[in-house]
């Protein structure tokens, strides 16, 4: 690679890093405002326009806080754990293509840090490394609640990683490549001229599994058991303060953004979208950003709506529902891919995906309605005894 190539690479690294930092700041602020709106509050609105600098102020405050290292911790591990948590969260964004290619002179520049031929495996590997941050933090703190958080998170994150990996396998089978750019390219085109070839449609079950596992992987409500505030106070980062606490916080939100970005790439067609004839290189990143924002909103929405799942139920759900479901789906996808030469592959996959998705929705609705009927039956007027007299 020549000098200009290096300059372009460093520029891209800086752009991605800056984007992620700013994205975290905006996400934290947007989450607080959105949740506040859903809960009939106002939310932070003092620092900067609409309070958008609130996160920055909080971050600065944490920088200047004392970095307390309690007695009785395993010092080296305790100090290293936040870094172990935050670095993989940054790294996994490297494989996300956030736009098409454009030309500077004769040079073609890809809007992606690294188009690895095993790109999606790199993402899974980084996700696994994240676990170490949590486990080491909880273990080295030498205290009960963090230990519980660490044990829970190691079990939770590992089991949900399997489900996530399987959902990714289905996509890889359908796309025929491990490269993230290749997966985005496989989603080009439309059905009937307006329904895009997104894997979110043809691979709907995998999409649902990926989103659920993604929420669990990033320790977000309703699967925020490693830090379950009302049980474990703060879980694995209970003993941390100052800038090290901030790193865990940063890692969590980075994970939200990265998971949304990967989900966009795998299932929502990445940067693809209608491109107007003006300012052509700008549109793909904008489309990409818009899709990521929608997915991040789903994370926030879930947090505002759902209570926390209990630990054993979470594990049961992961092992008994998500993993078998995604295994079945991988088999189905594989069969369809093998049948590809006979029938038009896209049509088959799309048809099956829609059918499976509709089936899953129907089942969900039926279960929910049955539950609703069950408890609503016990409302005033029925089976109410008159006491005393």
């Amino acid at each position, binding site marked *: 690679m020549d000098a200009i190539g290096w300059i372009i690479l460093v520029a891209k690294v800086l752009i991605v890093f800056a984007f992620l930092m700013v994205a975290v700041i905006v996400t934290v602020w947007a989450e607080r405002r959105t949740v506040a709106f859903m809960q009939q509050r106002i939310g932070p609105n003092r620092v900067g326009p609409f309070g958008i600098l609130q996160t920055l102020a909080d971050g600065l405050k944490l920088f200047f806080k004392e970095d307390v290292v309690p007695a009785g911790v395993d010092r080296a591990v305790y100090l290293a754990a936040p870094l172990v948590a935050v670095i993989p969260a940054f790294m996994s964004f490297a494989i996300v293509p956030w736009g098409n290619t454009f030309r500077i002179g004769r040079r073609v520049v890809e809007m992606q840090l690294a188009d690895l031929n095993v790109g999606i495996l790199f993402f899974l590997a980084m996700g696994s490394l994240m676990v170490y941050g949590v486990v080491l933090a909880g273990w080295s703190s030498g205290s009960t609640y963090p230990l519980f958080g660490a044990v829970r998170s190691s079990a939770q994150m590992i089991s949900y990683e399997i489900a996530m990996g399987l959902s990714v396998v289905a996509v890889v089978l359908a796309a025929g490549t491990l490269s993230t750019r290749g997966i985005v390219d496989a989603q080009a085109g439309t059905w009937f001229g307006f329904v895009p070839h997104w894997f979110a449609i043809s691979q709907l079950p995998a999409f649902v599994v990926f989103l659920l596992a993604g929420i669990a992987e990033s320790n977000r409500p309703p699967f925020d058991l490693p830090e379950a505030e009302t049980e474990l106070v703060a879980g694995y980062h209970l003993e941390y303060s100052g800038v090290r606490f901030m790193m865990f916080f940063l890692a969590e939100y980075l994970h939200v953004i990265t998971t949304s970005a990967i989900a966009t790439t795998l299932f929502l067609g990445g940067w693809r979208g209608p491109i107007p004839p003006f300012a052509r290189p700008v549109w793909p990143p904008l489309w990409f950003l818009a899709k990521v924002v929608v997915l991040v909103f789903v994370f926030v929405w879930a947090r505002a*709506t*759902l209570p926390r*799942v209990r*630990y054993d139920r979470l594990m049961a759900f992961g092992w008994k529902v998500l993993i078998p479901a995604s295994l079945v789906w991988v088999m189905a996808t594989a069969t369809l891919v093998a049948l590809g030469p006979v029938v038009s592959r896209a049509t088959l996959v799309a048809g099956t995906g829609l059918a499976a998705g509709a089936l899953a929705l129907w089942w969900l609705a039926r279960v929910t309605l049955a539950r609703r009927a069950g*408890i609503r039956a*016990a409302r005033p007027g029925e089976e109410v005894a008159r*006491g005393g007299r």
Partner: protein
Amino acid sequence: MSAREVWAQGGDWSRAVEAAGEDRIIVNLGPQHPSTHGVLRIVIELDGETVIGCRPVVGYLHTGIEKNTEVRNWVQGCAFVTRMDYLSPFFNELAYSLSVEKLLGIEAPPRAQAIRVLLCELNRISSHVVYLATGGMELGALSAMLYGFRERETVLDIFEAITGLRMNHAFIRPGGVALDVPGDALGRIAEFVEDFPHRVDDYEDLLTDNPIWLERNRGIGVLGARDCAALGVTGPVLRAAGVPWDLRRAQPYCGYENYEFEVPVAETADCLGRYAVRIREMRESIRIVDQAARGLLPGPVMVEDPKIAWPSRLSLGPDGIGNSPDYIRTIMGESMEALIHHFKLVTEGFRVPAGEVYVPVESPRGELGFHVVSTGEARPWRVHVRDPSFVNLQALPAMAVGGLIADVIATVASLDPVMGGCDR
């Protein structure tokens, strides 16, 4: 001093850990913990995440209120007891006032009785929404918390319009209530009665239909009717075990026999049953509030006896609440006798015939009873409170052992203890 003992003042930790042995974990939940309802401490012995021992430790919020009532006159007791169970201040005042009235052998006039019912049922609603709020928060449903506090705010605004205070009202007093209900408060109550059932529907949409909420509560913290009886557990916990025991129905006071309402029960005896019972109780309470507000007959709100009726006829002036100018004119310029009564009541207070009574009322948490002893003085000899939070908390080990640590949180939430009332 056994290893199983734990105290509010601490110093018990090393023994508890030693007694647990090698392969057990002891978790000290509280007194500073996000979900212990104030300052409850629970020492939990764990095998993995399974609870094998659970000891609630109380006393961190001891205020000496019971003892303090012995050195104040009978009316001042109201201002003390209202601060015990701070989520249901009117019930404390009511039970205390009823017991003093029983000793005095008087009964509050009908309008005062109706106002008492009105305030208590509104208070029951405001207490139950806080149960929903904190209970929801403890299971991670943060929106439920803010919705619950929003509704409580509405009720507290009504309280403020009626009594001048949002909490700690000292409004229900021996002989009646301190003031009549102002006209605009009734309009607000009517609005609330109109609005609140829809809000309960919202809660049900948010929680009753939520599979995660059901999963976290169904079959958790089970305590059957027999165990409830053995441990003296009352209130929604007992009714959730299928026993329709509600003092408003079983031993009516304040004219509860004249109101139409149902006593909700559930058969499941678990956290979900308690949730369902409370939700339905709110719906019943709003019915009672409606009946009490509509059926409010004109009349005095305090007994006529000038030797008992607290003299401060208050009025709402431009500068807030204060003494009524008319009343000042009467005692200062017109009636010597009124001045004497005023002086006697304000300096010494009234005397209560010797005797002892126990008066229970149905508070949002269960049977709240006042055992009051008088020796014929102008102040009580002893005021003992049977607070439902205290009694119900002793059932916690029976409910929590064998479950998971996450279930302890759900169970404590379903008991809805208020430590101010528990520790007094």
